[in-house]
C-alpha cells in the first residue's frame, strides 16, 4: 500500500527543534518568515549566540504539526543558507528542556502568604519584593511553569515574562 492513505490519519504532535545558525543579520527573520509564510505554528522560540568564536547561534523552537508538516519544517529550515544543522530533539532521543519565567503577584494578607508557600513548593525564588507584591523566578519545564502560573492566578497574578524553551540532548554527544 502506498503512504497516501496512512498520511490522512496522521495526528498533530509537538516537536522541539534545535537549529544551529550563523549569527548574522536577518537570520531570525528568515526563520520566522518561513513559519509565517508557510503557515506553520511557533509555540516557543528562543535564540542566543552559543559560539562566539565562530559566531554561531542556537535557535530552539517548539512547533506543532502532523509528521508530514514537521518533516517539511525541518527540510525548509535546512534549506536556509545560514543554517548549519537542524535537529529534532523530540525524535532524536532523550533531551532536557527548561524555561525560565518571572512572575509578578500583587496582593496582601492571606493570599500573599499563600503565594509564597506555593512558590516554595515549586522552588521558585523571590527576586523582588514590595509590601504588596512579589516577583518570582521559576525554572522548569513548560508544564511546571504553566501549573505555577495557574496557581498564582487567584492569588493576584499581575504579569508574566517567559524566556521560551531552551533544550539540549541528554548524554555526552553534541548535537
Amino acid at each position, binding site marked *: 500500500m*502506498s*503512504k*497516501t492513505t496512512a498520511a490522512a490519519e496522521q495526528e498533530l504532535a509537538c516537536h522541539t527543534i534545535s537549529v544551529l545558525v550563523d549569527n548574522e*543579520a*536577518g537570520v531570525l*527573520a528568515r526563520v520566522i*518568515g518561513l513559519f509565517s509564510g508557510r503557515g506553520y505554528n511557533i509555540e516557543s522560540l528562543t535564540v542566543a549566540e552559543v559560539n562566539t568564536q565562530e559566531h554561531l547561534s542556537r535557535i530552539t523552537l517548539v512547533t506543532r504539526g502532523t509528521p508530514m508538516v514537521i518533516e517539511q519544517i525541518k527540510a525548509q529550515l*535546512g534549506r536556509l*543558507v*545560514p543554517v548549519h544543522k537542524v535537529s529534532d530533539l523530540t525524535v532524536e532521543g532523550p533531551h532536557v528542556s527548561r524555561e525560565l519565567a518571572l512572575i509578578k503577584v500583587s496582593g496582601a494578607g492571606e493570599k500573599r502568604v499563600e503565594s509564597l508557600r506555593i512558590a516554595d513548593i515549586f522552588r521558585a525564588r523571590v527576586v523582588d519584593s514590595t509590601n504588596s507584591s512579589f516577583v518570582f523566578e521559576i525554572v522548569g519545564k513548560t508544564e511546571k511553569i504553566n501549573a505555577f502560573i495557574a496557581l498564582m492566578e487567584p492569588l493576584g497574578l499581575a504579569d508574566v515574562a517567559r524566556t521560551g524553551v531552551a533544550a539540549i540532548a541528554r548524554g555526552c554527544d553534541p548535537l
Partner: protein
Amino acid sequence: MGTPALLPSGTTPTGIVQGRSTPRAPPALFEQVKAMVDQEKSGAEIILKALADQGVDVLFGYPGGSVLPLYDEIFKQNHIRHILVRHEQGAVHAAEGYARSTGKVGVVLVTSGPGATNAVTGLTDAMMDSIPVVCFTGQVPTHLIGNDAFQEADTTGITRQCTKHNYLVKKSEDLARVIHEAFQVASTGRPGPVVVDLPKDILLRPAPYVPPTRVRHKSYRPQIKGDIKAIEEAVDLIAHAKRPIFYCGGGVINSGPQACQLLTQFTRLTGYPLTLTLMGLGAFPASDPQFLGMLGMHGTYEANLAMHNCDVMVAVGARFDDRVTGRLDAFSPGATKIQIDIDPSSVNKNVPVDLPIIGDVGHVLEDMIKVWKARQCRPDQAALADWWKRIEEWRARDCLHYEMSDTVIKPQYAIQRLYELTREREPLITTEVGQHQMWAAQFFKFEKPNQWMTSGGLGTMGYGLPASIGVQVAHPGSLVVDISGEASFMMNLQELATAVQYRLPIKVFILNNHYMGMVRQWQELLHGGRYSESYSEALPDIVKLAEAFGATGLRVEKPAELDDTIRQMMAIDGPVLVDVRVDPSENCFPMIPSGAPHYQMLLGPADKESQPISKEGAILV
C-alpha cells in the same frame, strides 16, 4: 622642528629610519603588504572584477542614483556588456531567459528603492521556477540606512521570502566574498535568485579583492550524490513494475543537458512511458514514442490517465505541483512513488513519497543506469506490453483535437503552423501566461532542453517578451519567438524598445483574442459566462505600435494567410510583432477542472455540460 644636521645619519627629516642596521619588515611580508595595497580597489571595481572572474559577460540593468559609481565603472571597461532594459521587472525576466537558455547565471543590476521593488516580481518568478539569478540592488549609503532616505527601501527585508538568499553588504572587505558566495548559492543545489544589496558608500570605498578560489561558504553544502542503497532499492522497484511511468520536471533541465541525456538513455533502456511537466518540456525528445506529452491540468489524456493508473511512479526533478496532481486525495492512489530531487523540502510536501532519493538528478540517474546494467534488469515484458496497449487506447482519443475553421484562425492551428514552419531552425521559445502558453506547451514539440522558457510556478504575465530579449542576447544567431497573448504582451511591452536598441531580432507572436483568455475560460466554466473585466475594450493597433517603436508589425486574420505571415516574420531581420487575430471563444482542452482527479478530464466543449465543476473545485482555481 630640527635641522637635518641634528639628525642621526641614516634618518630622513620625517623620522623614518633607513639603512641596514635598523629593524624593518622582512621582505616577504613587505611584498605581501605592498601587493595587498596595490590590490585595493574601489567597491565598484571589485564588483566588476568579481563578475569577470565568475564568467559573466552580460548584465541586464537600469541605472539610478545609488548605483552610479558602478555604472561609471561599467563605462570604463569593455568585457562585460550591459543591456539597458526599460523596467526592472524586465531586467530580471531577461536574466531568467538568459539563464534558462544557457544554463549560466543571469545577472541583474538595478538601483535602490523603486529599482529594487520593481525587481520583486522577477525575483519571485525565478524563485518559483528555480532559475539561477544574481541581482545587485543599489542601496542608500550605510549611514542613511533606516532613515527613510530618498529611494530607500528595506530591500533585504522585502526580498527575503522571494530569494534563495540575500545579502546586505555593510563592509567593503566583505564585498568580493559575498559576490562569489552569491554566485555559488544561486547556481548550485536547487538554483534560485540571490540579491546582493549594495550601499552607495561600499561602491566607493577601497578594499582588497579576494578571488573565487579562496571563498568557501560556511554552511551551504547541497547534497549532490544520492544514497546508493536508496538508488538500488529504486532500481529494484522500477525493474519489477507492471505499470510504470516516469514523471519528470524542470529539475532535469536544471541539472543540465547531460542529465537530460541520461534520462533519455534510462527511459529507453527500460522501455517505460514518460511524461513531462510544463517546466520539463525538452528534457526528453517530444518525437520519441515513449513520450506521452505534458501532464497536469492541460496535459494530455494519456499522460494523466497513465499517472492515475500506474503502479510505480518515478518523479525526477518534479515537485508534485497542484496543477499536476489535481485533487490530492485521488492522485495516483495505487502507485509506489519514487522521487529524485536535490531539494529535501520537495519531498513529502504535497504527496507522500515512498522512496525519496536526495541528490542531483544527473548523478542519481547515472548511478541508476549503472545499477540497472550491473543487475541486468529485465522488465516484465508481458505486463509492459499490456500497459502500453492501455496507453495507446488513451492516446487514440486524440485529446488535442480541435475543430478547424476556414474563416477564423484557431489559436491551436496558429501554434501548429508556427511549429511546422520554424522547426528546422530549432527556435528558442518563450511564452507569456494564459491560454496561449498552454497551447504552446501542447502543440510545440521540443527535442532538446533549454529551448523552452515559460513562467511556470508564479505564472507571470509579461514574462515572455523580456525573457526573449535575454534569450536572444545569449543566442544572437538563433530564431527566438515569444508566443504571447495580447493581454500579457501589454504588461511589459516597453521592452520592445530594448529589443530595438540592441537590434535583437525577437519575434513576438501574439494570439490576439481581445480577452484575458484563461480568465474568460474559467468564467465560462465556473461563473455562468459572466465575463467580469476580462475583455480588453481598448487595445493599441499592434502594427502601428511596432512601427512607433521602430520594429515591424504584421497582422493576419485569415487561416489561409497564416503561413505567409509566419514566413514573412522569419525573413525580417529585426524585431517583429505579429498580431494573429484568433477565435476569441476558443477554450483550452483537455482540462482537469480544479478539484477533480486525473481521470475526470474535460476533453472538449461537449464535456463541459456533462461534468460541471463543483463548488469545492471553484475554490481551488
